[in-house]
Structures are given as C-alpha cells and as structure tokens.
C-alpha cells in the first residue's frame, strides 16, 4: 500500500517526449541490448530443441560396444543386426519390422557450384527408416532411388551453401560418387534435418563396406529399452549395446552443456553491459533535471514519489525497447539457421526466449533507473534549485 502522493502517471510519460532525441537514443540502445539477449537465448533454445526433439521415446539405437556417444564410429555386421531386429521386442505390423539399419558418417561433400568440398553428414537408409523416424516427412520430391539422395531442410546450411545448391535435380559429390537430389525432407527441427539420406546399399557400395553404424528400432507395445539392452548384453558375441534414443540425445546435450552455460553467461554479460548503458543514460537524464526535481520537492512531492516517477520513465522506455526487440527478433532472427559441429539448427524465439528477453529488458529499465534516481534525491533542495 502506498502511503504517499505519487506524481501523475502522465508526468513520466510526457517527460519522455520532452527530450525526444535522448529518449530515442536510450530506446535504441536498450533495443539493441534486448535484441542481443534474444539472439543468445534463441541460440540456446534452438540447440536444446534440436537435440530434444531428435529423441523418440519409442526408439532404441543399437550400436557397437563403447560407441554410445559416437555412433558414427560404430560398426555392426549386418548379421548381428538381423539377430537383434528379429527379437520380439521390436514392433511388427503386417509382416513389416520397424527396424532401420543405417550407415551414418561425416564426410566431405561438394555441390555443383563448389570448388572445395566441405564436411557434411550422410546417412544410408532403407525405406523402413520412415517407419522408425516418425518425425521425418518428405516435403518436396520423392524417396531416393539408386544414385539419388534426399536432403534435409538444413543440409545446405550445414554445408554452408544456399538452398539452391541442393535443389531437386542438382547433384552433389561424396564418397567418390555423384548423387542426384530427388527430394527434401523436414524432421520437426530435429538433428536429422542437417543430414543427406541415400539408399543404404548404394552408400555401402560406395564405401566398400558391408556393415552398418547403427540399428534404429521401434519398440513393440509393452517392451522397454531395458529388454533390448539386456538381450544385447547377454549376447556378448554380438558386441553391441542398446541405448534409448532419448538417452543418446540427452548425453549429447550434456556434451553441449558448457556451450549452453557459456551462452547464458553471455546473456548475463550483455544484460550487465545494458544495465551500465542504461545507468549512464539515466544519470545524464537526471543530472540535467536536478532543478526540476528540486522544484517538485518544494511543491510537496516526497523524494520517493519522484524516484518512483524516474523508475517509471526507465521502465516505460525499457518496455517499449523490449517490445520492439521482440518484434525484430520474431521477424528477422526466429528461424535463422546456424551451422555447428553436429549439423545445423535454427534460432528459436519461443515463449521461453520471449519471457527471458522481455524480462531482462524490464529489469534493465528498473535497475538502470534506480541508482541515478536515488543519487538525485540526495541533493539538498536549496542546492538543487540553484543548480544550472
């Protein structure tokens, strides 16, 4: 409950328009700070979402012993994989087994327009991959036939090329072969979107390999990842182990933990810099208004009422800056694709990012206005009235 007379709300609002130049500059600085916060939070949220949606709780990955975090180095003979997918814990429907043997690797790729190859991600798959990888949808073109590839929505970004470089009908070279793009797929923002899929047999022939890297299986109703893990560990001769796909991506998230912490640290640093910028601006604003503030005191307004009015001005500016930054972030940053070691992901300005960004902006406004307001209030009224 407030037990003192406040300055009118309009007073603070009008004050912002009395010095439009200063207000616009402060608004611009705060918008920039909040926008930077949006970029960093969007980066963290994009990375987290990409890894989180990649794991399906019904899918188990079977890989060779010791390759639970690096499936690209895993190698399973096809015969061993067949023993695993023939167990009763794997889903079957109309004589179709929900098992996707895959050969996964990072390799040098070169599009038609490239002089130099770059590192891309290839996955040799069979059509059953679409049964197991439920998030994958062909959005353009068709399933690849021999010598063709299906490219993920972010595959071009992973290669550092434009979307046109991997348009349908274009070609790409890897593993000493030229592959024609037959279609594009989306996968709900998961890590698969930065991959290039081709027929498993073709990739095996190109690489002169007969094994696979990973066997992705959909669990039968009632079965758990532990059932398959127990089977694999009991069959020591298979030299494989099973990991729930969610656990696999959770372990990858753990690897990127330091990156996430670094990003959050950047949020704090940017916000800290923003607070100092705000402080500086507000100090300037208050110093120029010492006589006005002293006059308000002589009119009978308490110091805390005047301080509150100054905080109101700062908060209003910060709120306007937060909304402007949020609008810019949604228009220009949301969905922006970023390359990283494991593939590519898009910056995500979701509800969490909006809450963090706007919250940071409002705190900047409030915290930034408080110290100069308190300082101004310490000046004796007589000195304030005489100030030039």
């Amino acid at each position: 409950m407030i037990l003192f007379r406040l300055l009118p709300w309009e007073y603070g609002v009008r004050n912002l328009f009395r010095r439009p130049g200063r207000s616009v500059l402060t608004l611009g600085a705060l918008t920039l700070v909040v926008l930077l916060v949006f970029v960093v939070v969007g980066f963290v949220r994009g990375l987290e979402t990409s890894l989180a949606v990649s794991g399906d709780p019904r899918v188990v990955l079977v890989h060779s012993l010791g390759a639970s975090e690096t499936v690209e180095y895993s190698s399973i003979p096809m015969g061993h994989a067949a023993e695993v997918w023939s167990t009763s814990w794997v889903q079957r429907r109309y004589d179709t087994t929900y098992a996707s043997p895959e050969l996964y690797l990072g390799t040098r790729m070169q599009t038609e327009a490239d002089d130099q190859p770059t590192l891309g991600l290839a996955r040799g798959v069979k059509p059953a991959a679409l049964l197991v990888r439920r998030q994958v949808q062909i959005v353009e073109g068709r399933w690849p036939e021999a010598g063709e590839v299906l490219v993920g929505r972010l595959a071009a970004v992973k290669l550092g090329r434009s979307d046109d470089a991997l348009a349908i009908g274009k070609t790409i070279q890897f593993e000493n072969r030229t592959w024609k793009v037959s279609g594009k797929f989306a996968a709900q923002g998961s890590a698969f979107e930065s991959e290039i899929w081709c027929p498993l047999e073709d990739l095996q022939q190109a690489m002169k390999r007969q094994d696979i890297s990973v066997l992705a299986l959909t669990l039968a109703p009632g079965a758990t990842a532990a059932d398959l893990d127990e089977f694999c560990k009991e069959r020591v001769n298979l030299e494989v182990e099973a990991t729930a796909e969610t656990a696999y991506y959770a372990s990858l998230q753990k690897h990127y933990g330091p990156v996430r912490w670094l990003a959050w640290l950047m949020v704090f640093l940017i916000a800290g810099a923003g607070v100092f910028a705000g402080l500086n601006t507000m100090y300037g604003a208050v110093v120029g208004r010492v006589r006005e503030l002293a006059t308000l005191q002589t009119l009978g307004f308490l110091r805390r009422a005047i301080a509150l009015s100054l905080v109101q001005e700062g908060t209003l500016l910060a709120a306007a800056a937060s909304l402007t930054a949020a609008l810019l972030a949604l228009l220009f940053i949301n969905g922006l694709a970023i390359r990283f070691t494991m593939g590519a992901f898009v910056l995500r300005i979701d509800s969490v990012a909006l809450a963090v960004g706007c919250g940071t902006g409002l705190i900047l406004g409030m915290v930034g206005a408080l110290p100069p307001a308190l300082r101004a209030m310490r000046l004796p009224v007589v000195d304030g009235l005489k100030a030039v």
Partner: protein
Amino acid sequence: MNRWLFLAPVLFLVGCGQSSSDPLDKIAYGPGQHPDSFKYLLGSEPADAKDVIALRGDAKDGDAVVVVGRVGGSKQPVIKGRAAFTIVDLSLKPCNPGDEEECFDFACLGKEKVAKASAMVKFVDGQDKTLNVDAHQLLNAPQLEGQIVVVRGVAKRDETNNLTIQANQIYLRPKQVVKATESAQP
C-alpha cells in the same frame, strides 16, 4: 561452555560420516535398502571363485558356479531398471594404470577382447525372468560400476556359447580390500 555448543551439530555430522569398522555392515544394513537384498547379499566371500575367462572356457549349461569379476565391459554395464549387469575378467587392465574403479568400460582394449572376457550376471524370479528392479537398488550399491563381485549361481550357455550366470548370491568385495589385494599382486 555455551560457546562450544555450536560445534555439536558439526561433530554429530562428522560422526555420522565415519565409515563403520566392518564395511559389510554398510552393505547389508544400509538405509533405503531393497527388502529382498538380504536374500542375495553374502557377508563373507565365497571360496574357490573362478575367473570369468576360465569359466567361459569350461562351464557347462546348468553347472553351479562361483565367479569373480569386475562389473564393467561398457559405459553402462548395469541394465537400467533390471537386476542384471555384465562383469569382466579381473585380468583386464584399465586404460590408465591405477584407475581401476573409474575405468570399467575398458574401451581402449577393443570390443572383441572385452567381449571374450565378459559374462552377464542376472537375478531372476521363479520363471527365469530377470527381476524388474535396478541392481544398484537390489544390492544397495549406488556405485556398482567398477565394483569387484563374487557371484554364486548357475551357468547358462546359449547356442553361441555366451555365458550368463543366474545369480543366487553375491558378495561385493569392499573397495579398500580390493586395493590392498591388487597392490599385493605382482
């Protein structure tokens, strides 16, 4: 005297943190223990335990066996939510010498060598179905990975000669004894 009273809780906590003189007390009667663990945990080490590699060579299906090994062979040798885990032969050396307790996956030795020195241990119910309880909880051993265990049970061989031990009883060799024993070995 009152000024020393603030030390009382500290001294109490220190007292609680001290290990019991007999490590088996902690294993067999620890807080939060699974009610069935007393059926399986042994208070003393069974004699004449065979190594995993030796047992893989000569155990026949249905033989009563006693085997000694280290819980390991992969990054997660204990199956999550199941009373089952893999053990490896004690002759396997860790990647970094002196790292016996932390290095239990023996990844640097190669999967073939590890597989040839591995066996599975599981606790089953009357229908030979693995108990649906995590081995950590059943054996009251939060850090079972890397632990040396002596298992008494029945050997089971499949068509590809893999070895599984359906455990009846288990002895968890206290870690300080492990170190003393191992350091005494040439």
